[in-house]
């Protein structure tokens, strides 16, 4: 992707946000390019929702500039800009007493969309049969799907999703990301936040890591992980009576500890992982090998320590 040739959909420069004595955001620089999926990662309270609210013009920055589609999201043009914006808040329960169809119609009217599209939209998110049921009877997964249908009303240029898969089971999460991928194929950029890494890696083009109101790192996940050179954890199990691991692993930069007589955990830097794997595979006593990649927690821990800004952008 060549940055700079196309105007970014969202641009934040030196953005600060303070309220009630809380310094919620400090010097945030961030861009969302057309057609990309940017993951906004961070623990609860890191500033993800605040960042989204600033982008959508619900909050005003204390300092710095916020641009949505090249304009200020606050003030005169804002109404016009919002027609091209789709948003799914965290924890939205909608109107319990209305049916899914009625909820969608209400938001479509506010956005000035054609209501005839709504049946098709509900079919697309798999709520065709439930569209006349009261939203109060929906499961969390169904509510999120209704939320997504609501967010993509009027073919927005930017979709902002706040913790869209929190509380969804793995299957519903998978479904949800499949639908987001479909939306992206139609040229819509997506900004989505999450406090967990598993599940979103395959769907995001870039991630921005927020911690205590600072942008700790920004770039592709692979790049961030590589730069952080985080160790992988390998767990092996099997029957290896009599093997002297101290001697076997000599020369490898690896830490290991025995969990019990049949299980062991080894930690090794990413670049030396394959060497170790080969060694382990040649060991006949090992019956199973399980590799865990660094988690978001490890990434946070690393970037929190190093305070690295803008690793790769």
């Amino acid at each position: 992707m060549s940055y700079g040739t196309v105007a970014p959909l969202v641009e934040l420069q030196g953005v600060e946000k303070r309220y009630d004595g809380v310094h919620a955001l400090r010097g945030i620089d961030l861009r969302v390019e057309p057609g990309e999926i940017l993951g906004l990662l961070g623990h609860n309270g890191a500033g993800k929702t605040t960042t989204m609210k600033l982008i959508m013009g619900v909050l005003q920055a204390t300092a710095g500039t916020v641009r949505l589609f090249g304009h200020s999201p606050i003030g005169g043009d804002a109404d016009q800009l919002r027609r091209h914006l789709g948003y799914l808040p965290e924890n939205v329960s909608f109107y319990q007493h209305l049916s899914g169809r009625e909820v969608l119609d209400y938001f479509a009217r506010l956005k000035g969309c054609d209501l005839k599209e709504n049946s098709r939209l509900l079919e697309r998110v798999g709520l065709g049969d439930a569209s006349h049921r009261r939203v109060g009877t929906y499961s969390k997964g169904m509510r999120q799907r209704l939320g997504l249908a609501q967010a993509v009303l009027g073919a927005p240029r930017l979709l902002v999703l706040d913790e869209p898969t929190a509380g969804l089971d793995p299957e519903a999460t998978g479904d949800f990301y499949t639908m987001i991928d479909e939306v992206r194929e139609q040229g819509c950029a997506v900004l989505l936040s999450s406090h967990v890494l598993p599940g979103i890696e395959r769907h995001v083009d870039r991630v921005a890591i927020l911690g205590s109101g600072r942008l700790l790192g920004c770039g592709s996940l692979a790049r961030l992980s590589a730069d952080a050179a985080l160790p992988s954890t390998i767990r092996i199990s099997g029957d290896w009576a009599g093997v002297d691991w101290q001697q076997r692993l000599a020369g490898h930069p690896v830490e290991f500890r025995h969990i019990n007589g049949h299980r062991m955990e080894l930690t090794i830097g990413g670049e030396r992982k394959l060497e170790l794997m080969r060694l382990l595979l040649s060991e006949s006593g090992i019956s199973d090998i399980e590799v865990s990649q660094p988690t978001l927690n490890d990434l946070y821990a690393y970037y929190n320590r190093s305070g690295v800004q803008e690793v790769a952008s």
Partner: protein
Amino acid sequence: MRAIWIVAAKEFRDGLRSRWVAAIALVFAVLAIGLAYFGASASGMVGFTSLATTIVSLSSLAIFLIPLIALLLAYDSIIGEDEQGTLLLLLTHPLRRSQLLLGKFVGHASIMAVATVLGFGGAALLIATISGGADGELWRAFGLFIISATLLGWVFIAMAYVVSVVVNEKSRAAGVSLLLWFWFVLIFDLLLLGAMVLNKNSAGGEWLSYLLLLNPTDMFRLANLSGFEAARNYTGLTYVAGGPLFDPMMLTVFLSLWVVVLLSLAGWLFNRRRV
């Protein structure tokens, strides 16, 4: 403008579906017919009393009921949307806060107006038919009653919005609304009466009667009772208030002013609310 109508239409439809409109209209109608029927038994007669007597006793009851209904109808307008997550969502639509609030008001105000007209209006037709007709002046009085009752409801709807945009919990909005109801319906008049009693012997205590304008329920009472000679004698507070300022038409204007001021206050506070 379009946005206001969309919000208003939703609120009104919600009001129809949740049977708010039907419930309020029914309560008003039952109240009016009941008072008309039992009002006569107090004076030793059987059957329906006249519309004039009914208006007088109805006003006293409506003062308690209408503010309560209006506050109940609207206390969770903003905080309720906030708690279910839809407020933030609405504000990311092409919709300003002032438009959202005005839309809600148009919707709730219509619910109140429709219910009042249906409930009290229907009852009046029934009573007039049974008790043998009513003259033009009486219909005017009843028209004023319906209009001022609606306005009183609007005042308290707007007041509920002020509460709803300030608090950060729905239960607190309910509590504050009840306190406001208590203050305007009971405490205020008690304090005012107390002040009048204390002021009895000193000259120049007349300014106290202007304090009535600080309470919309008193304005409603004055607007509806001052028209009836008989009522003046037995309603304590209305007795003290005379003069052009307390003309029913002026009082209606003052009630409308209350609506405008409270709505503006709610709008101003809403804009300052952090969502």
